[in-house]
C-alpha cells in the first residue's frame, strides 16, 4: 500500500517505497522533491533524491558525513544560488510552486522556507528584539503592532520569551549558546514560514541545550513543517516522523537510499545499507 505522493518502486533504483505501517497523522504533502541533484563545477555532490515532505511533520535527513545531507537541504531554499559553481537539477515543489523556475523569486521563497544553521548566528550588532524582527523587516513588514506580535509569538514558541522579555534591547551576544540558537529559531519563525529547514542545529551545543532544542522541534511541528539534518541517529529517532537516509556512493556522490516513517526505518528497513547504518556499523 503506497502513500499518495511516494514514488513507485523501480527495480534498478535505490529508491524504496514507503509501506506506511503505523503512520502518524497523514499530513498533506507540502514539498515534493523529484530527481534532485546538486553538483559543483560538474562534480556531483548529491543525486537521485526523490521524496515528499508532509505538513505538520518532522522529516529528518540522516546518514554519515559526506552523504550530501546539508547540500540537499540548502538546495531547498536556493542557498546555492550565490555559489557560482553550483548547479541544481530536478524539481523541487513547494505546494504547487516550482522552486527553481526562472519566474520564482528566491528572496520571496525564503520567506516561506526558513533556515536555522549549525552554529547559532544571531546578528551581533542587533539587540534581541531587532534580531527577532529582522526577517520581518527584510520582508517589508513595517507595522509595529505586527512586528511586536510576531516577535513575541516566535519567542514564546522558541521557549525564550520568559528569559528575554525584560531585556529585549540587550545584545544577542549576552545569551548563552543554546539561547542564541533558540533566538535564531525564533527569528526564523517570526516570518511565519511554511517549512523550516534545520541544519544540524544542535551539533554546536551542550547536551542540556540540545535536549531543549529537540523538545522544541517536536513542539513546533504543529506550527511549521520541519526538515532537519542530523548525523545523530538517536536524535532522529527522538524527534522525527519520517526519515530520508542518504549515503555516499562509489562515485563520491550522495544518494537517497531509503525514505519512510522513522519507526519503520529504524526497526525494519528495506535496504541492507540502511540496516547497517542504523545498527551503527558505520558512522
Amino acid at each position, binding site marked *: 500500500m503506497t502513500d499518495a505522493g511516494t514514488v513507485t518502486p523501480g527495480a534498478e533504483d535505490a529508491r524504496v517505497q514507503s509501506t506506511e505501517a503505523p503512520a502518524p497523522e497523514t499530513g498533506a504533502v507540502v514539498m515534493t522533491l523529484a530527481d534532485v541533484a546538486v553538483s559543483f563545477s560538474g562534480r556531483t555532490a548529491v543525486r537521485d533524491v526523490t521524496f515528499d515532505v508532509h505538513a505538520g511533520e518532522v522529516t529528518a535527513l540522516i546518514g554519515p558525513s559526506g552523504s550530501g545531507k546539508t547540500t540537499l537541504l540548502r538546495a531547498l*531554499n536556493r*542557498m546555492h544560488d*550565490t555559489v*557560482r559553481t553550483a548547479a541544481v537539477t530536478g524539481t523541487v515543489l513547494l505546494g504547487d510552486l516550482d522552486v527553481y523556475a526562472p519566474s520564482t523569486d528566491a*528572496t*520571496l*521563497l*525564503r*520567506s516561506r522556507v*526558513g*533556515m536555522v*544553521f549549525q*552554529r547559532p*548566528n*544571531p*546578528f*551581533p*550588532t*542587533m539587540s534581541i528584539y531587532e534580531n527577532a524582527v*529582522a*526577517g520581518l*523587516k*527584510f*520582508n517589508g513588514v513595517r507595522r509595529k503592532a505586527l512586528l511586536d506580535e510576531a516577535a513575541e509569538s516566535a519567542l514564546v514558541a522558541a521557549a525564550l520569551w520568559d528569559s528575554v522579555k525584560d531585556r529585549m534591547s540587550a545584545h544577542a551576544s549576552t545569551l548563552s549558546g543554546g539561547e542564541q540558537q533558540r533566538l*535564531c529559531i525564533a*527569528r*526564523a519563525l517570526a*516570518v511565519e514560514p511554511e517549512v523550516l529547514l534545520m541544519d544540524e542545529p544542535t551539533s554546536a551545543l551542550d547536551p542540556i541545550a540540545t535536549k531543549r532544542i529537540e523538545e522544541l522541534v517536536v513542539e513546533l511541528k504543529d506550527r511549521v513543517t520541519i526538515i532537519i539534518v542530523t548525523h545523530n541517529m538517536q536524535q532522529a529517532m527522538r524527534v522525527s516522523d519520517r526519515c530520508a537516509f542518504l549515503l555516499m556512493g562509489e562515485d563520491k556522490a550522495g544518494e537517497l537510499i531509503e525514505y519512510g516513517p522513522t519507526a519503520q526505518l529504524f526497526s525494519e528497513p528495506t535496504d541492507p545499507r540502511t540496516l547497517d547504518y542504523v545498527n551503527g556499523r558505520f558512522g
Partner: protein
Amino acid sequence: MTVVETPRPTPAPPDVRGRLRLPDRGYRGILAVAAALVAALAAWFLVSIIIQAKPAFSTLGFSWILQKTWDPTHGKYGLLPFILGTLEVTAIAVVLAVPIGLGTALALAYLVPARTRAALSTTVELLAAVPSVVYGLWGLVVLAPVFRDTVEPFLTSVLGWTGLFNGPDQGVGLLLAGVILFVMILPTMVAISRDVLAVVPNEQLEGAMALGATRWQVLRKVVVPGARTGLLGAFTLATGRALGETVAVALVIGNSPYIAHSIKSPAATIPSLIVNNFGEATGTELAVLFGAGLVLLVIGIAVNSVARWLVWSTAGPSAGATAR
C-alpha cells in the same frame, strides 16, 4: 598581505642554554642596541620639535593659534586661516571619500567576480603609490583649467543657492585641493574598508539571506554594521593622511593666507604654510612655523593612533597593510 601569527619559539632547554649563553647574548645584544637606537631617534624627534616650538608659545602665548590675520611683516601670526583651510580641504576630501570609498570597497569585497578582484583592488591601491607631487602637478596643469572653465561654472549654476559657491572661478582653490586630496586618500579608504568588510563572517550573511533579504539588504543591515568599527578606522586613517598632505595641496590650493569665504576660494593649509615660508623665515616667524608644525604633529598623531586602534580591533594587525 596577511600573515599568520605564530607563537614565539619556546626557550632552549637549560643545559643547551648554558653552553649557548655567550653567543646568544651577543645576538640579543645587537638587536637590543638597534631597538634602543630607534627608540632614541623617536625621542630625539619629539624633544626637538617641542623645544623648537616652545619659543613661539613663550613669546606669543597661545592666542595666536586662533587669530585670523597672518601678516608677518606687521608682526601678526594668526594661524586660524590655515587651521580652517586644513580642516576645510580635508572635509571636502573626506565627504567624497567616505561614500565612494565605501561603495568601491563593497563592490570589491562582494560584487566583483573573484577572478578580477585582485587586479581591480591592485589598480585602486596603486593610486597610493603615485607620489603626491605628481598629483600636485597633474592637478595644477590638467585639472585646474578644467575646473576653472567647466566644473566650477557648472557647480555654481547648480548649487550656487547654497551660498558656498560665491566668487570667481579660478580653478585653484579649496575645491580643487579637496578633490585632489580625495583621489589621494581614496586608496587608503578602499583598501582598509575592503579588508574589514570581507571579514564579516559568512554565517551572518547566510543568516540574513535565509530570512529573505535582498543582496543590498544583506550588505546594508548586516555587513556594513558588522564592520563598522573597522570602517570608522579606515575613515579616521584616511582623514589623518589628508591632514598631513603637503605638496599636492600646496600646488593647487592657491596659497592665500585669508579665511576662505567660498569653496572656490584660494586658501592655505598648515603644511602649505610651512613649506612655502620655511626657506626665508627668520626669528619670530620661524618660531611660529615650528609651533605650527607642533600643532600639526599633535593632530596627526592623535588621529592616526585612534584610527589604527579602530582598525586593529576589527580586522587584525595586518589589515590594510598594503595601503599606506
